[in-house]
């Protein structure tokens, strides 16, 4: 809704020099948080998320326990210094909503029937925010869950797509996020072609929505490969340490 001060696409290039379909540099690592059952760090350019997984562990008070399936809880939060204007660390409405839909996105991929009465806690923190924070966190959460040994149907890979200056783009940075005509966050289980997370806003035709979904699928597949590679390397490293 807000007008950008400067155009977001000049000569076919985005403000950070990328092409429309170009993803920023992606970094992934696993196992940094020693206290956690699983942890991972994922960055897209200057967007950086750390995630720790605790569980499955006993859930109290007892009335919260589901008898036949386990519970997944997610807390998404941003460090106060991750954004331009210092963020109060108390959870705001945006964080609560993201936590809720992320919980649903991850639950869709977890065999929750494998840990009845127990809970898996996924704690996501954004260290640096430059757009696409929720999808960075989902990618890290998926790695952290896998490295914690939580039984999963598939890894969940996520990315953002959107429309700026009449151009469809992938992996929005902060400025693009703020001034986009539309943006969409997608998470999926790539090997199954199933979408577990979808948030979109803006003004798009049906055809544009479908085209963006296709672009998102391509990016998610690349991320999926990176995730598998990262897990494999971690696995090898652990084997060697034994």
């Amino acid at each position, binding site marked *: *809704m807000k007008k950008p001060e400067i155009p977001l696409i000049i000569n076919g290039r985005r403000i950070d020099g990328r092409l429309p379909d170009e993803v920023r540099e992606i970094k992934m690592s696993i196992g940094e948080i020693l206290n956690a059952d699983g942890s991972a760090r994922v960055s897209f350019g200057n967007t950086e998320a750390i995630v720790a997984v605790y569980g499955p562990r006993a859930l109290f008070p007892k009335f919260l326990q589901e008898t036949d399936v386990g519970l997944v809880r997610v807390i998404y939060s941003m460090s106060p210094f991750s954004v331009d204007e210092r963020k109060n660390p108390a959870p705001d*409405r945006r964080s*609560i909503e993201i936590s*809720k839909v992320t919980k649903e996105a991850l639950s869709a991929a977890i065999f929750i029937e494998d840990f009845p009465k127990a809970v898996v806690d996924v704690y996501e923190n954004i260290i640096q925010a430059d757009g696409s924070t929720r999808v960075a966190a989902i990618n890290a959460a998926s790695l952290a869950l896998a490295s914690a040994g939580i039984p999963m149907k598939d890894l969940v890979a996520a990315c953002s797509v959107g429309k700026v200056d009449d151009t469809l783009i992938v992996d929005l940075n902060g400025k693009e996020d703020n001034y986009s005509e539309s943006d969409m966050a997608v998470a999926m289980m790539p090997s199954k072609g199933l979408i*577990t997370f979808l948030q979109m806003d803006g003004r*798009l*035709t049906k055809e544009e929505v479908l085209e963006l979904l296709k672009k998102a699928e391509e990016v998610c597949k690349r991320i999926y490969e990176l995730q598998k590679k990262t897990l494999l390397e971690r696995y090898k490293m652990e084997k060697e340490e034994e």
Partner: protein
Amino acid sequence: MEEFVKEYLNQGKRIDGRGFRDYRPIEIKHSVVSKAEGSAFVNLGGTKVYAGVKLDIGEPFPDSPNEGILIVNAEFTPLSSPEIEPGPPGEDAIELARIVDRIIRESQAIELEKLFIEEGKVWVVYVDLAVFDMRGNLMDASTLASIKALLHTRIPKVENGKIIRGEFVSKLPVIYKPVSVTIGKYNNNLLVDLSKEEEEVIDTKLVIGVRDDDKICAMQKQGIGALSFKDIEGALDLAIEKSKELRRLL
């Protein structure tokens, strides 16, 4: 009950006899709250929600100094269901309010730039949803109530920087009537307007906000299931179709 609902759905039927693409009866009333600048009441198949609009003078956001401000809030009052505890809005109420907010904002339904009063002063438009009975598909009922209330909102008179409540100078500039169509997926079927009983067995939903010109202005997947690309394409078609039907009620 759950088994009963599932059995019906498996047979391609709904327990209340509706087709998969049918809404329950919808009652919409406006201007039902005398103190609000705009208000509406929606009864969608038993789900009851009030939307009240209050206008206040406030400071604009630094990055849009000439635009009014929209704030949407939803209270799931404990009257509405035995499961709702009194207290601040939970994640479901927050999500609902934020989706309604995005549907209004992203559809550009309100001409916010016309809500400028003077340097440093703009109208703040509060849309408050008060839910009194939860019988399924609160999402679509809330969007309908909000837009209906906005369509009947009047801007009060201002004298010496003070609002004169009860005296009005103009209508709120609302130029679109976006609606939401929430679609559930059960097996490979898509259903609209889930009842309370259906919501208990169908855990994957897609909310789609549609503007008068068929532009999609918001989407949100809800629930712990997953959707295929084909599901989404089908849901978009269904949403665009049903949106016209809902919009006629506004």
